[in-house]
């Protein structure tokens, strides 16, 4: 079965410091990976996905199939980045296969 592991429940960094939120997955095929974010009192929203190879709000994530990882990185953390971050996996690029979420990491950026 597919599994997504986010080893850190809480990550605290100072403003301006680099941040890396770890995500590892287990799936033998070619997955599609996502990062979702939930700001305080707001809904879950898509931050980025690996097939887009985009940078959103300064965040990037690279899929490393050898290490089965999809870590989320930002070189300089901002206070407004404080939120819950969820890594998610899909095994189907076009269909209806449900997303499998990790447990989430709470990022706290300290001024």
């Amino acid at each position, binding site marked *: 079965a597919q599994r997504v592991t986010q080893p850190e429940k809480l990550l605290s960094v100072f403003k301006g410091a680099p941040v890396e939120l770890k995500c590892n997955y287990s799936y033998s095929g070619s997955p599609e990976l996502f990062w979702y974010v939930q700001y305080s009192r707001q*809904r879950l929203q898509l931050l980025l*996905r690996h097939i887009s190879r985009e940078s959103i709000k300064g965040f990037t994530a690279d899929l490393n199939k050898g290490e089965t990882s999809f870590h989320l990185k930002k070189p300089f953390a901002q206070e407004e980045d404080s939120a819950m971050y969820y890594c998610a996996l899909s095994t189907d690029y076009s269909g209806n296969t449900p997303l499998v979420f990790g*447990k989430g990491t709470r990022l706290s950026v300290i001024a």
Partner: protein
Amino acid sequence: EPEVTQTPSHQVTQMGQEVILRCVPISNHLYFYWYRQILGQKVEFLVSFYNNEISEKSEIFDDQFSVERPDGSNFTLKIRSTKLEDSAMYFCASSDPGTGRKLFFGSGTQLSVL
């Protein structure tokens, strides 16, 4: 940007009672989902719905659960006889083929079973 809306935002019920959680997906979306998140735990998939039928469901989605799209806009989750362990935040989401696997989530319904 269009949003998925969920009502109510909070629902308190007695154990054994039936609850219906309501969702209005984004109007041109074709895929609909329910997820839940028990406090302190991860977001878990319950069920997906496409073309007026369940396309996939998890082990959590047992006979106590059902979904319905009673009209062209609403998508409901019914729990027939609630248990204490059903207490969770329930999220509705929708997507369409044009957005790939980008799910749009509602703000959730916090269900408390007493």
